[in-house]
């Protein structure tokens, strides 16, 4: 079932699950690559899960610049707003 809105805490839980981290470590501004050791495969996994949950598609350049929870939250929110 696809969500039509994106709750930041739900998103934080999704990202933490993929990254195998406690939710508290996925802070709003922690850099995925430099702070949380996200590699390209993990970034792809996040993208696939976001698509399944929220129905939004990432472009290649968006995937390359996946930077923080806040950034992902803004991105998903704006894509959902565009679709509405």
């Amino acid at each position, binding site marked *: 079932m696809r969500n039509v809105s994106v709750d930041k805490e739900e998103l934080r839980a999704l990202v933490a699950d993929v990254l*195998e981290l406690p939710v508290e470590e996925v802070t709003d501004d922690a850099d995925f690559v430099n702070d949380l050791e996200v590699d390209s*495969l993990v970034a792809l996994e996040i993208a*696939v899960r976001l698509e399944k949950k929220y129905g939004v598609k990432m472009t290649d350049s968006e995937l390359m610049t996946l930077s923080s929870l806040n950034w992902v939250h803004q991105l998903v929110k704006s894509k959902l707003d565009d679709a509405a």
Partner: protein
Amino acid sequence: MTDMVVTGLGIVVPGVAKPTQALDPVPAHSPGWFDVAAALPGRGYRWLPPACQYLLAAARSALEDAGDPLAGLPVERRGVVVGTNNASMALMDRMDRTIIDADAAELSPLSAPFFAMSLFASRLSTEHRICGFNLTVNTPRTAGLDALQVGARALAAGRAELLVAGATEEVLPAGEPGRQAGDVGAAVLVCEPLARVAERGATGYGVVRTRAAFLVPGAAGVPVSPVDVSPVDVSTMDSSWAEVCGAESPSVEAVLDDSPVGAAVQSWLAAQRAAVTFTTARAGCLTPLRRLVGLLATGAVDRVVLTAGAEGNVALTRLRPCAANTRDPAGS
């Protein structure tokens, strides 16, 4: 000379806490028998397919048991050979379901690479920096013992000085024949040439030598399907036995099924003078290697482990005591 010394053992099988228990009957297991967080602490393991987790955990135990054999060994002098029959079947089944019921775009990127069955063993190279060679063997039933033979040839050719050899299997997906009694788990042996064992002052469980054979179902060497009940030509068993045992008649651990090939090998064994312990073969290639681990761990090292698959493949592994520095089985 394709003998090699086994210096480390690792096993991850339901109901078996350590290699000395590997000969115990395998209990029925339930999902959740394997605690990945306990066996593989840290990140990067949770989303791996179970058969890869089992293999990594068993290899970790075996390398620790061998007394850190990687220390000081250049990465290109290390090799891996792993046997598997069923490691990716459950994953492929889940992937089929995702494509059929949803969309290929929903396939998990973290799991997708394991579509290639060779990736289960490849992950060992990433984990332990094993860069000499890495090979996956898939021969039905015999792949675990075959892995020892292939690896031993590579060591004898000087391609590496350390071999991580093993087998891993996962539960078959629902609906597959043999699902209730399939192999599940992993067994890993660390193997080294005798010279290196002596050089680093290590101790060995025993020496192993493996040979392959093929029994052609049907008369006059004409291959027929495994369901054919024509007599199986066992004449090559004598020469294969001689290659591993010479004139000796060690006791035999036989892992066989009730196919015409399995039955023919059983009859051939009955005609030999050796004592035989039979274990019913399960779907997969793990059971023969598990029996081998158990024999080595308990010091029962004057043995042959023999297995055969319905297609005609046979493998025999001769175990002998080490000449020197033998491990004390009681201390394992």
